[in-house]
């Protein structure tokens, strides 16, 4: 079938001029259809290719000419800080407490040495000169062995490495290793702890925050202040030396946040040489050790009685005669043998008065109150060395009486710090922490006593330092309040008369508490200067006084005029017994 349009077609015309091949072209039908389809496909493919070229070309221009995205690329591939396998530990001011450094260790390949025909004896002699303290014959034997790897010495100093390198002995090689360094030495040794050679935390924060230290690139910021830590360690050590004591401990904490600013357990340990530590010294007395605390417990007993309205600041108890219960006798160390008001019971540290106060409150109430202050179960902290308190089971009336003055119940100094913080800061209990809190972050905490009770307790604590058993804790200008405690240590099942734990818990400034300080000295021996005394007031209180005077300027706490009328009024206690109750004996 021919049409007119096709008639002028010349079969010999150039192909491109008239696309269909020479010869008659089917105007319709399946053949034409498939031809058109392939034509369209060809065109589409061409367009796609052209587009692809354009895209690649455009991208090349972008990369080569405009150079856009290069800075972004650089930022996206910042070098991760991968050399250290363990994060640093710093104090609250950024002072480095623990870091990981690369050190070289030197080893030998005896086979390679034999191949190089090295004189083993000569090599051992040279190495022994470069590395003093090495056993030369032993080294020569090692170098002459058949093995392929023998350590010569691990973790060299840079000078030693240079010296060995200068020898140029074939087969003596270096291997880079990582080593945990504690630049501040024994400072806060028990808090920081140490890590083993396999990068595993074995004590202290190194153990407690092991996972975090392994994974984090950022340093772990402790709440510890290295300067205050130094002051605390020095002053507790001074008391240990002065009283020829077995050991001691100290904690300083922020009463409003629960941050521990300094914590020590003496004798100290040096984490740089964990192998040299005496196993007995490893015990963190401040957190793991639990002790019968003695009279410092009267802080809780008095707070309980006041908070529960069992008695008032104007109330009192008869402390004329010792209490006989079972085969025990409860008597006063600083006996006044008369009726005592509540402030007097506290300031003269009367066991009789305190026991009667506790009996009035009742056993159940006592147990509930101490539990509320966190004294009956182990506290939480970023350390694993946390002691479990030993509490009376069952809790009889006799226990109620002895617990009132801190016997028959063993708690850790850390628990004391947490509890006393809550008593003085207005009545809010915070959990203790060794990690720095963000500035202006105020943890909510839980209310455990009324604000008025807390204020009364602050007045009583001040009274102890002004006129009671804690006079040596006074620091001019810095309004220290506190309570002494002297406990006879338990030896087996009986109390050892000569073995004391002498403590002082101080709070300052007492009108607006910022820090609570606890100092305890383990088994002090009386000296001539203390007139044969080894009680908390003689042993621990002076240390607290010196610590306050040294740390207050560092912490930016201004001194005040202690005799100004405002302060007098704020801390006034009318401690004299009311006339009706006054006994003839006084």
């Amino acid at each position, binding site marked *: 079938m021919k049409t007119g349009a096709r008639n002028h077609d010349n079969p010999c015309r150039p192909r491109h001029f008239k696309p269909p091949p020479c010869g008659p072209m089917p105007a319709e039908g399946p053949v034409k259809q498939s031809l058109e389809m392939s034509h369209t496909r060809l065109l589409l493919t061409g367009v796609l290719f052209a587009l692809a070229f354009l895209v690649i070309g455009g991208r090349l221009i972008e990369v080569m000419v405009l150079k856009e995205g290069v800075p972004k690329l650089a930022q996206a591939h910042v*070098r991760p*800080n991968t050399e*250290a396998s363990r994060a640093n530990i710093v104090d609250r001011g950024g002072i480095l*407490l623990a870091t990981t450094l690369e050190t070289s260790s030197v080893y030998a390949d005896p086979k390679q040495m034999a191949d190089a025909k090295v004189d083993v004896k000569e090599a051992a002699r040279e190495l022994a000169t470069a590395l003093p303290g090495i056993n030369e014959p032993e080294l020569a034997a090692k170098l002459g062995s058949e093995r392929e790897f023998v350590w010569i010495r691990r973790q060299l100093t840079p000078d030693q490495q240079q010296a060995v390198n200068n020898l140029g002995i074939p087969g003596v090689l270096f291997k880079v290793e990582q080593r945990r360094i504690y630049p*501040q030495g024994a400072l806060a040794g028990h808090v920081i702890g140490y890590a083993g050679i396999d990068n595993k935390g074995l004590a202290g924060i190194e153990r407690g925050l092991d996972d975090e230290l392994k994974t984090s690139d950022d340093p772990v910021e402790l709440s510890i202040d290295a300067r205050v830590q130094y002051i605390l360690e020095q002053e507790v050590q001074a008391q240990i030396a002065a009283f020829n004591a077995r050991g001691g401990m100290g904690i300083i904490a922020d009463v409003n946040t629960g941050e521990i600013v300094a914590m020590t357990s003496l004798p100290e340990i040096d984490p740089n040489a964990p192998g040299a530590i005496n196993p007995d010294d490893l015990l963190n007395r401040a957190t793991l050790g639990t002790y019968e605390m003695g009279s410092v417990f009267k802080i809780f007993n008095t707070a309980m009685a006041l908070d529960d309205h069992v008695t008032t600041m104007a109330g009192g108890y008869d402390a004329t005669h010792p209490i006989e219960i079972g085969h025990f006798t409860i008597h006063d160390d600083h006996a006044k043998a008369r009726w005592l008001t509540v402030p007097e019971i506290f300031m003269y540290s009367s066991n009789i008065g305190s026991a009667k106060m506790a009996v009035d409150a009742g056993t159940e109430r006592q147990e509930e109150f101490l539990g509320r202050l966190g004294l009956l179960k182990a506290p939480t902290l970023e350390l694993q060395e946390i002691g479990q308190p030993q509490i009376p089971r069952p809790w009889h009336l006799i226990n109620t009486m002895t617990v009132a003055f801190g016997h028959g119940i063993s708690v850790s100094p850390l628990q004391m710090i947490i509890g006393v913080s809550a008593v003085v800061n207005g009545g809010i209990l915070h959990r203790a922490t060794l990690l720095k809190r963000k500035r202006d972050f105020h943890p909510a905490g839980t209310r455990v006593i009324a604000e008025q009770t807390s204020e009364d307790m602050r007045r009583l604590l001040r009274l102890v330092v002004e006129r009671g058993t804690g006079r040596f804790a006074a620091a*001019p*200008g810095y309004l220290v309040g506190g309570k002494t405690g002297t406990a006879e240590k338990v030896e087996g099942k009986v109390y050892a008369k000569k073995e004391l734990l002498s403590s002082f818990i101080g709070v300052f400034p007492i009108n607006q508490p910022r820090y609570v300080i606890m100092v305890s000295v383990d088994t002090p021996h009386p000296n001539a200067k203390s007139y044969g005394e080894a009680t908390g007031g003689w042993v621990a209180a002076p240390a607290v006084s010196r610590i306050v*005077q040294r740390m207050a300027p560092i912490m930016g706490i201004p*001194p005040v005029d202690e005799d100004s009328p405002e302060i007098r009024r704020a801390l006034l206690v009318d401690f004299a017994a009311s006339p009706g109750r006054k006994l003839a004996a006084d």
Partner: protein
Amino acid sequence: MTMLRLSTWVWLSLVGVVGFAMFQVKYQVMQVEDELNRVNRLIDGDRAEMRVLDAEWSFLNRAAWLDDLRRRYLTLAPISGSQIGSLDQIPFRASEQPASAGRTPAASHSRSVTLPGGPALVSVRQGARP
């Protein structure tokens, strides 16, 4: 004919240019990677050095060490509470008395006596070095 040549040449030259550019980029990338490795090695080295310097800085700033140096070479002692006061505890002379203060010189003088612990605001240690 000319049409054929033109488009073919355009495409051929484009292919050439793009090919050349590709090689160029590849070599540039290789160079940049070498540079990156070099810089990264430098960064690693510097970081290691910084860690050592940080450790040394901390070591040399040990409180015990500074305390020892202080004792040996300086005639300085920690300040005590009695040496710190506030500005309104400083007595002004009558002529320096700010007019707005509105109190008599005698009153201002009597205030200065209340300074805690003693009158000295700055104490100079006796026997200090000349």
